[in-house]
């Protein structure tokens, strides 16, 4: 199993489907911490996260035959985790999550990704640590996936089932909200 650590996720899935069921442990090792971090941030609490992540892995295993081996595994497992976290959020939240979001209705100009601005990323990560809970879940989640899980817009769009332009808009608005909340006097658009 050690040699499998160099294999891609998709290759590992292929081997599990071929009958090497123990290789599922490799996927658990690779994604356990990432999914826990994503869940803690998104749900704003580590409470029950262990059970939710375990349920995610069980769901991944049960549905593994529906995974398209020509696609990337990472957005697929994050999508399952996203659904699990949304369900957990619905159970915990007093305010129901909105059924319909006007953001997805109309086209938005695509906000470009800015992967080279490391300083800005570091600043936003610090802001996320301080005041992520103040943001509504719809802005919180793309910020976590972009700044903390370091996924690109295309993957985030696939995980959240949103147009890429909407992902860009939410990240941009979320970032501005964070900056405004952390230091209203210095806030500049």
């Amino acid at each position, binding site marked *: 199993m050690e040699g499998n650590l160099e294999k891609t996720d998709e290759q590992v899935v292929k081997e599990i489907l071929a009958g090497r069921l*123990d290789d599922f442990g490799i996927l658990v*090792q690779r994604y356990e911490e990432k999914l826990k971090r994503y869940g803690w941030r998104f749900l704003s609490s580590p409470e029950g996260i*262990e059970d939710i992540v375990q349920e995610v*892995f069980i769901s991944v*295993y*049960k549905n593994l*035959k529906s995974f398209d081996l020509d696609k990337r595994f990472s957005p697929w497992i994050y999508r399952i985790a996203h659904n699990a976290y949304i369900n957990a959020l619905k159970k915990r939240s007093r305010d129901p999550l909105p059924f319909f979001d006007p953001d*997805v209705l109309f*086209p938005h100009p695509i906000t470009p990704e800015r992967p080279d601005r490391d300083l800005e990323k570091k600043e936003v990560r610090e802001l996320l640590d301080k005041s992520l809970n103040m943001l509504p879940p719809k802005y919180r989640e793309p910020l976590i996936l972009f700044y903390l899980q370091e996924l690109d817009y295309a993957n985030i769009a696939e995980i959240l089932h949103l147009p890429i332009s909407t992902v860009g808009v939410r990240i941009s608005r979320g970032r501005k909200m964070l900056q405004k909340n952390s230091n209203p006097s210095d806030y500049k658009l």
Partner: protein
Amino acid sequence: MTEDKPQSMKDKVLGEIRSQHISMKPKWQFFLKSLLIILLLSIIALYILFHTSFLFYSLHYNGSLFLTHFGVSGLRRLILSLPWLWLLSGIILTILLGILVEKQTKAYRFPLFYTVMSSILLIAIISALCVILPIQTSLHKLNTETRIPIIGPMFKNLPENEPLKTYIGEVSELNGNGFLLTNRQNQTTRVILTPETKLNNNLKLQNGLEIMMIGEQKANYIEAEGIRALLGGFGADVHAEIND
């Protein structure tokens, strides 16, 4: 005394797998689910298609579409005579279809507005084609010979949907200041022409000519406001074909 080491998540999940407490769902289940979703979406799309093409067909059949040739007055009558409930339910169903497509397919990549507008446009085009081809005319004709279940009564009620103060029929006799108009039910009405009557495309009235007319019903005659020939027009032979 040994202290129990907490089980790692990997061990817990692998334990569940090894003990066969959990198992992978067979591929056919996912295939069946996709098939059912496609089937459901197709049924809804087909119903909407029939719904919308029937709407176009009813407007075409009762002559409402020709009202646009009579200027503002015709347009006003067209708006008043539109089956708004039918139209609105068609639009609502199409929006629902757009939302379902967005949720069940990769259409989420596009803004919902695009998906819904594309659905509306596509359905409008295919529905218009169903009338032009003419699929609805054939269904209507078939329904006069053999009653089609479910949709049959819809065709039966079609003639009652004639637009307000609009008359379709054949010029059966010309006289001094007008003519006699014989409608599809073989009822004859006297029509009076006035200097204000608009004759579309300098229409020359003659016996046997199929026309559509808007006008005001008086005591025992109709005062014509506008007349247009049906011959050679968009699907002008529909009535003849259905009544054959």
